[in-house]
């Protein structure tokens, strides 16, 4: 009977935390792999409009155009009018061509012919600015565009 008495009074052994670092490392590697560091500093406000009839953007063949009002810290300098940003700086309508060609040059050469222009435009911008951009894109013969949106539906609010 002594077999059984031995156990008597034994407390639960503490849970080993030796595998904790492994678990944490696993998570760490996941986030390291999944992380995309922001490539561009946003100079304009970006509250994207909502839409639900969307398609995925193919990142490897896209160049970005941002547009909207200058963000708070640039308001004093650049005013309240909607502006265009390509890469890291503000661009005038007339210079879009140059800036886009430069951005396209950074893409994989095989994909440069099927370039998609991703328009990230703040929802408070006037459509006139977007129209100007589109006109310019037609002249440049970059006719594939995608209006980047956030999930949701305009009717819901």
């Amino acid at each position: 009977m002594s077999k059984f008495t031995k156990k008597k009074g034994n407390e639960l052994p503490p849970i080993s935390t030796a595998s904790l670092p492994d678990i944490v490392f696993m998570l760490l590697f996941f986030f390291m792999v999944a992380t995309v560091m922001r490539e561009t500093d946003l100079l304009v406000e970006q509250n994207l409009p909502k839409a639900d009839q969307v398609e995925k953007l193919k990142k490897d063949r896209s160049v970005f155009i941002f547009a909207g009002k200058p963000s708070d810290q640039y308001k004093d300098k650049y005013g309240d009018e909607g502006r265009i940003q390509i890469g890291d700086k503000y661009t005038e309508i007339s210079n879009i061509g140059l800036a886009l060609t430069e951005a396209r040059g950074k893409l994989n050469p095989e994909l440069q012919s099927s370039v998609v222009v991703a328009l990230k435009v703040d929802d408070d911008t006037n459509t006139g600015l977007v129209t100007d951009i589109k006109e310019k894109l037609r002249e440049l013969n970059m006719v594939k565009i995608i209006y980047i949106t956030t999930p949701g539906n305009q009717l819901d609010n």
Partner: protein
Amino acid sequence: MARRSAPEVNAGSMADIAFLLLIFFLVTTTMEKDKGIARQLPPIQEDNIIPPKIKEKNLFIVLVNKNNDIMVNEVPMELRNLRKSAIDFLDNGGASSNSPEYCSYCKGNRKPSSSDNPNKAVISVQNDRLTTYNTYIAVQNELVAAYNFLRNRESQRLYGWDYTEAKKDMGLGRYKGKAKDKINKKLKEIQQMYPLKLSEAQAKKQVAN
């Protein structure tokens, strides 16, 4: 003298270091997967080309003014009704059954005053320069939704799957080899049944209030 074994490094703080890094990456991560409404702009046209004549009944003119009010074919309309009326317009199939333009798969009202055939039906969006982008996207979204609704209906009827789902899977590369060609062909067929004819005139300076 016997060599003493080196004392073991305490690995207790390993977890802390890993946590620190983990939190850093957690904070910096933006799971960016951009999505949006894709569009193809019309190429620049030469001036001497005369635009093709479109019958008035085949036109669905959406005007958006600077106050973001919507007017369809001269009648004011709420945004929430836009999708429905676009579907009704596209799916009308007004051509009579003995004319070459007869639409056999349309399920609309077949009103002679509305569009003849989805192939003929053109939706034209004209917006003011001062329309907010928000409204512009909302209108585009509703119109694309109308097309997607009809395309899904037809692909469900013919093949038993949703057009939009199949297109999404195609984009993700879920189909391989023969199946890919087959699905692609079917997608094309559906596209031809309801071709996307969304024209965008250049934003007018001022449209009727």
